[in-house]
């Protein structure tokens, strides 16, 4: 995961300013999921995000993608203020891959059809036939390049794919039409240990292929440490640790744990956190 060091930083691709999100619980209490987040990402950045449950990691991605509107603050992509835009309006800028393979693809549609839907992200959908021969060939090529296991399953229904295959498909779909920002929300967390690396490989290929700016939330410290050029530690809706490239290269999962304990005043990481053997 090497890339050229950033000289004088160009305009940030993604900028969050004072982003706050509150959720109200049943008893009238409010939980602050995001507490005045400031964040900037430049083109080509790959940021991994870790933290305890309820730290706000998923909410952060949701606010960026537009799935959840924020209460205060501003979200800008490529300098455009998208804070009030619903998700479908900014979908051509932000691509997402969610955690649950059961809901990451459309099960009744074929693999090809799912890809065709993803292909049209950001384009006007009219009465053009969705799967013309040329489009089919194009999609086939992409799949062969990025996710070979799916190459001869194009005509099958997406619902008949296994969990790992679905996540692979979801990754290809997210990266098919290009995006300014790619959000990965623990997208390998529900897969068994043999599948996860496959999907991660597809993910890396896709990101590298398009030079995508990426945010990846994960509970797997190994993944967090090995991937990406920057790491954020979140706790109670705040970014408590921000490890940049140079420091990150020297990071190990153990050191990460220590930093986390220091930053959070002794809180252990949750049981789900995956540590290397």
């Amino acid at each position, binding site marked *: 995961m090497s890339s050229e060091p950033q000289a004088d930083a160009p305009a940030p691709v993604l900028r969050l300013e004072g982003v706050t999100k509150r959720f109200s619980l049943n008893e009238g209490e409010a939980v602050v999921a995001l507490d005045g987040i400031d964040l900037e990402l430049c083109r080509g950045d790959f940021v991994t995000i870790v933290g305890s449950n309820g730290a706000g990691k998923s909410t952060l991605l949701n606010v960026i*993608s537009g*799935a959840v509107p924020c209460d205060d603050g501003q979200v800008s992509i490529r300098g455009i203020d998208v804070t009030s835009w*619903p*998700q*479908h*309006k900014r*979908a*051509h800028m932000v*691509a*997402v891959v*969610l955690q649950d393979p059961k*809901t*990451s*693809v*459309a*099960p*009744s*549609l074929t693999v090809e*059809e799912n890809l*065709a*839907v*993803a292909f*049209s*992200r*950001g*384009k006007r*959908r*009219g*009465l*053009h*036939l*969705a*799967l013309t021969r040329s489009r089919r060939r194009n999609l086939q090529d992409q799949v062969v390049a990025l996710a070979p296991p799916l190459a001869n399953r194009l005509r099958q*229904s997406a*619902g*008949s*794919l*296994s969990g*790992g*295959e679905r996540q692979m498909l979801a990754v290809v*779909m*997210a990266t098919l039409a290009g995006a300014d920002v790619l959000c990965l929300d623990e997208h390998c967390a529900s897969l068994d240990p043999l599948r996860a690396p496959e999907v991660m490989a597809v993910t890396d290929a896709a990101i590298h292929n398009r030079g995508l700016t990426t945010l990846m939330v994960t509970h797997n410290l190994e993944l967090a440490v090995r991937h990406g050029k920057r790491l954020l530690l979140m706790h109670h809706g705040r970014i408590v640790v921000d490890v940049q490239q140079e420091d990150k290269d020297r990071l190990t999962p153990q050191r990460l744990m220590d930093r986390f304990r220091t930053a959070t005043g002794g809180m252990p990481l949750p049981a789900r956190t995956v540590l290397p053997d």
Partner: protein
Amino acid sequence: MVDLFATSAEQGLVLCLVTLGIVISFRIADFPDLTVDGSFATGASVAAVGLAAGLPPLLAVGIAAVAGAAAGTVTGTLHTKLGISKILAGILMMIMLYSVNLRIMGRSNVPLLDVRTALTPLENVNWAHSAAFIIAFGVLALAARGVLDWFFSTDLGLALRAVGDNEKMAVAAGINPDSAKILALAMANCLVGLSGALFAQTVGFADVGMGIGMIIIGFASLLIGEAVFGRRSITRLTAAAVVGTIIYQLIVGTALRLGLAPTDLRLATGLMVVAALGLSRRAVQRRAGAEAGTAA
């Protein structure tokens, strides 16, 4: 026996448009739309008023179809913009349309006998009327089916299917879910309104209560058709809609001839739906079991 088949085919081909509409709302858009009972009568009312006023028949029928689409649009808007649940939105529209239809006709019942209808040229045919109707309605049904099969293989149609199948994923792909649902409902109820307009001309009058029970008839027809064709693709669904409606009319006609009281028809239809749902559930479970076995 032949005329039983002829009448069933005739009615089935007119009413299969309702079933096609139900395919769009229930199966494709995942929106249980109960507007049908209302929009069917709206199509009948609008067409009747237009025909009685002397409008060219095809124009009257066209306006009726548009009226149906308008009804569906309102239902969709009630759900997407006002947050009213899908079923409740449909029920509300169905109830409100009763009053609207009464207003449109000005009375509860408009006769269409001595009026030029879209069917008049067919009625003047000298040879077997039934055959003429069956051919004409058959062509219409196949045309409707063809249009739908084509539409749902376009980008726009695929977008509607995506919203109905996995709304989260569709939104993430940049599809506006509200517009998609409204469009689906407009299309579905356009077909239902069209069916109502043609049905009124077949039976010779338009009545404000004409649509009552249509949703059940349409749904039962669809289930029967799916038992034959399955629902794995759009083309199978549309075929199921057309054929299922004709089979349903045949079953009903035969049952009535054999002595079933029409007042018991609703119970019988309901039982048919329950049986078909039970059978299809078993089929889904069997298929799921097979897939679990083959999946990696």
